[in-house]
């Protein structure tokens, strides 16, 4: 691990500052990036300092929006909902994905292919279509799940119509939908592990479980790092499912923070406030990612 970082530095030191070459690699990426990604974000920051109903010109407010946010109980509630969503869905999703991917990486090629296809089905479909289907499945009394519960003599929880279960139901659907995607990422990572490492471990006398912990998992860490950061980032931005499954309810219990932003901006026509929440959200995610980035030295293996 330590060797990896120093070796990169050494490798790079050996080559002169490759600024121009780097620029030629980066140029197409960077130009579009600045024009169509950075610029709108700067505009968002500007708008967060105004009051804007989209129909009349923006009015300058300074930091008023920011002061209001932190005492807004709605903001805190949706932030809490989103945090719960992230904590519930990210670890479960990644652990399940690793577990299933390892099972799918065995010697039986045809079976593996079959499972790969089936598990990827939810990912292929649009969130809208899937959320609609799950809405039917979750329905009280007449949905399929409720049917299953009553056929074994239990009463189903009110998946979408109680404040206790609403967010959890969204989590379940989202984990289900994203599983195939995470599995593919892990599989790609698994494919990248050179067989030589396994052979070396076998020579050392390691059994299946050991091989997993000593070879597979460490070699997977760059992929897992990527998956964790991306999952956290995208979890904090969950929107479609909450809108379609529960419409944020009952009573805001499953309103995610981005749904709150959308509501502020496009329903209540308070785009300034919406941008403010977006900036705060951004700062929060940035903080989390920076923490994860700093921690990567502790557990991520590059070129071990």
């Amino acid at each position: 691990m330590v060797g990896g970082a120093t070796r990169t530095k050494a490798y790079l030191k050996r080559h002169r500052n490759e600024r121009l070459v780097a620029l030629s690699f980066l140029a197409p990426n960077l130009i579009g990036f600045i024009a169509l990604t950075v610029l709108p974000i700067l505009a968002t920051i500007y708008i967060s300092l105004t009051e804007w109903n989209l129909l009349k010109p923006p009015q300058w407010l300074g930091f008023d929006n920011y002061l209001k946010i932190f005492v807004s109980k709605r903001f805190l509630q949706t932030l809490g909902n989103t945090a719960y969503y992230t904590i519930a869905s990210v670890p479960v999703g990644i652990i399940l994905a690793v577990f299933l991917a390892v099972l799918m990486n065995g010697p039986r090629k045809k079976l593996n292919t079959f499972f790969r296809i089936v598990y990827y089905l939810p990912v292929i479909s649009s969130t809208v279509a899937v959320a609609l289907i799950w809405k039917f499945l979750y329905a009280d009394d007449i949905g399929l799940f409720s049917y299953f519960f009553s056929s074994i003599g239990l009463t189903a929880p009110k998946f979408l119509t109680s404040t206790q279960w609403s967010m959890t139901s969204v989590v379940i659907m989202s984990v289900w939908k994203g599983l195939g995607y995470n599995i593919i990422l892990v599989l790609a990572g698994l494919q990248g592990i050179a067989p030589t490492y396994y052979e070396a471990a076998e020579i050392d006398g390691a059994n299946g479980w050991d091989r997993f912990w000593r070879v597979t998992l460490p070699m997977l860490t760059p992929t897992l790092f990527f998956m964790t950061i991306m999952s956290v980032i995208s979890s904090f931005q969950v929107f479609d499912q909450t809108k379609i499954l529960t419409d944020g309810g009952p009573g805001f219990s499953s309103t995610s923070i981005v749904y709150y932003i959308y509501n502020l901006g496009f329903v209540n026509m308070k785009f300034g406030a919406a941008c403010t929440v977006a900036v705060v959200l951004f700062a929060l995610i940035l903080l989390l990612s920076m923490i994860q980035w700093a921690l990567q030295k502790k557990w991520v293996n590059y070129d071990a």
Partner: protein
Amino acid sequence: MHRKRGSVSLSEASGIFILFLGALSMVLPFLWMVSTSLKTYNEAFQVPPSFIPQVPQWGNYTEVLNSVPFGRFYFNSIVTSTAITLGQLITCSMGAYAFARLNFKGRDKIFVIYLATLMVPAQVTMIPTFIIVKWLGWIDSFKALIIPSIFSAYGTFLLRQFYMSIPMELEEAVRIDGGGAYRCFFQIILPLTKPALATLGTFVFLFFWNNFLWPLLVTNTTEMFTLPMGIQLFAGRFTAQWHLMMAASTMAMLPMIVVYLFAQKYFVEGIAMTGLKA
């Protein structure tokens, strides 16, 4: 550890069993979707829910095709998704190489900014982006659908991680031979990251195939609609025609399955480590 051919170990069997259970849960909602697409409007809400429609309404599919220009939506979606995928593969693989291997001032700081942009939800940036695109005169054209999406911090990040897990020795060999960054990139990195490229390509294609919010804003006339918007046309103000929407959704899903079937064999190829051992 040699087993007799054809026999299955206990751990393997239980593994496969677990996979099967999971697979069933993956498939169930889709069976439901297809079965709803073959029901009548009333039948779609029957309680208890039935999987087999009484009389399969194949006519639902023709009704969808006849009532909206579905073929045009297909075309638009294919062109858009393909162009974006190719564009992203090119710009992201090159950009990721710069971040992973090349040394230049401020490299890591710029990369962090890349990551940071992923953290701003699309719902807010889309208004300023829309204004920019409108100013460029791209509204209601393929340019608006494609160009803003070619530049992806996500793709750059994904590929950077993959590149960084490739051992340096291979590139060092090229450098010793006197080759530059370009040779390293084309000869070594690209071939080795085919699984990653295939992965990224599939994700990107899929994401933009189902992408809804941005095309909604930048297209005005039905001729420029992509598939997700076409499906939404069946959601009326008070009543949604679920059976038709499910039929439309099923049709929208099919090309994706084809793409995936085609791409997923690339996931199988591992890294060829011929001739070079640590």
